[in-house]
């Protein structure tokens, strides 16, 4: 167990180090997220009562798109340079590799979100600094990263991976999008009655799809 955690953290650390040196992912994802939020500000009517709902939608679309960008890039970078094969040759369990990549992706997307959320709050004039909102954000991102890591690994070894990843992910992620947007809207409008149902749904989705992705990852990377 201890040993496994060490191995996972080494893989995560490797990804962080790569990012610190190449700076290929983070900046692009962040700017993309902010630009999406800005564009939505003009696309939606931001006055009146619908502001919270449109704002929540805009935020999640921005994070999802930035997430697609990051996922695709983080895996294809490894595939292209051949380091993914090196990783697979390491004497570690394939599940451990999956968890390492998953946590790395989760970390990147969460980081982008944490920096974009204050900007979002300022631009939309919404009170986003609530612990529950952070929980909803985290649960949504977890599900996104779990399915995303698995699908990105598959898409990266196919032709036209840039197109394939969103096409595969959007339908599968729909429950996450619905639940996250609804939960965020409810928190922003301070209607916490139905909130637990959505958070439970997110939690269940996360557990289920993390388990499936972990279980099948071994088969996916088997060459």
């Amino acid at each position, binding site marked *: 167990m201890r040993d496994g955690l060490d191995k996972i953290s080494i893989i995560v650390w490797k990804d962080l180090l790569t990012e610190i040196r190449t700076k290929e992912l983070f900046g692009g994802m962040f700017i993309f997220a902010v630009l999406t939020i800005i564009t939505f500000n003009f696309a939606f009517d931001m006055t009146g009562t619908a502001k919270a709902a449109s704002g929540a939608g805009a935020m999640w679309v921005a994070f999802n798109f930035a997430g697609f960008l990051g996922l695709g890039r983080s895996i294809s970078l490894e595939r292209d340079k051949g380091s993914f094969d090196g990783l697979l040759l390491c004497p570690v369990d394939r599940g451990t590799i999956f968890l390492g990549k998953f946590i790395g992706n989760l970390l990147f997307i969460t980081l982008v979100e944490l920096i974009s959320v204050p900007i979002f709050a300022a631009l939309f004039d919404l009170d986003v600094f609530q612990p529950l909102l952070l929980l909803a954000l985290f649960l949504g991102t977890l599900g996104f990263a779990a399915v995303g890591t698995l699908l990105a690994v*598959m898409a990266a070894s196919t032709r036209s991976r840039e197109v394939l990843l969103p096409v595969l992910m959007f339908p*599968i992620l729909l429950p996450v999008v619905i639940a996250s947007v*609804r939960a965020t809207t409810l928190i922003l409008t301070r209607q916490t009655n139905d909130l637990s149902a959505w958070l439970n749904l997110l939690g269940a989705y996360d557990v*289920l799809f993390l388990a499936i992705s972990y279980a099948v990852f071994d088969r996916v990377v088997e060459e």
Partner: protein
Amino acid sequence: MIVKGKSSWASGVGLVLGLLSAITMAIGMYLGLVYAPEDAIQGNAQRIFYIHVPMAWVAFLAFGVVFLAAIMYLWKRALIWDQIARSSAEIGLVFTTLVLVTGSFWGRPIWGTWWTWDARLTTTLLLWFIFLGYFMIRAYAGDRGRAATYSAVIGIIGFFDVPIIYLSVDWWRTLHPQAVISVTSANMPGQMVVALMVCLLAFTLFYLYLMIQKLGIERMKDQLIDYQYALSEREAEGVTTA
């Protein structure tokens, strides 16, 4: 000449199934279009249900078969499971498309709209997209083993996802005030039930018939790939002279 032995058995079963499904289909169409009474409220548009509901059932059945075959493929790694999965997925895609189209033609006169974001409709649409992704990843995967593995993963994830999609859309609608349109016509007259049951049977038989046909084709395709591979191997060995 490839299709000797086992396949002649399959074509025999296929023939019987084809005949059976054609006969039941004809009876079902008669029952649905003539025998069953016209619905008092919905008029003739209600008769679309006699093909719509059975096709929806076949689409979900096909998806269930894809799921089971996908699990078996990832477990056993035998190509036969992938052949079953991809055959069923193609039939499922065809029927899901038809379910969406016929549903629209029912919705237009009854609901006054071609489309609404009802849980059932949205789930079916998403199912269609998952099937589409299934074939896209196959097309782009490059080689046979990879295509089989990747599409199997999509089949498994999709199967678990569909009930969650349904649940989330259902909650989204109920917790989100909107004009609720009731789909169910609770008490159907007996003749309608009979017609629907016969149509369900007919389409299930038809699915089995299509499965046998499609499976035969997919097996033959793989056989040919193996054959060409073996042939090129022989040529490389240089056994040309007899």
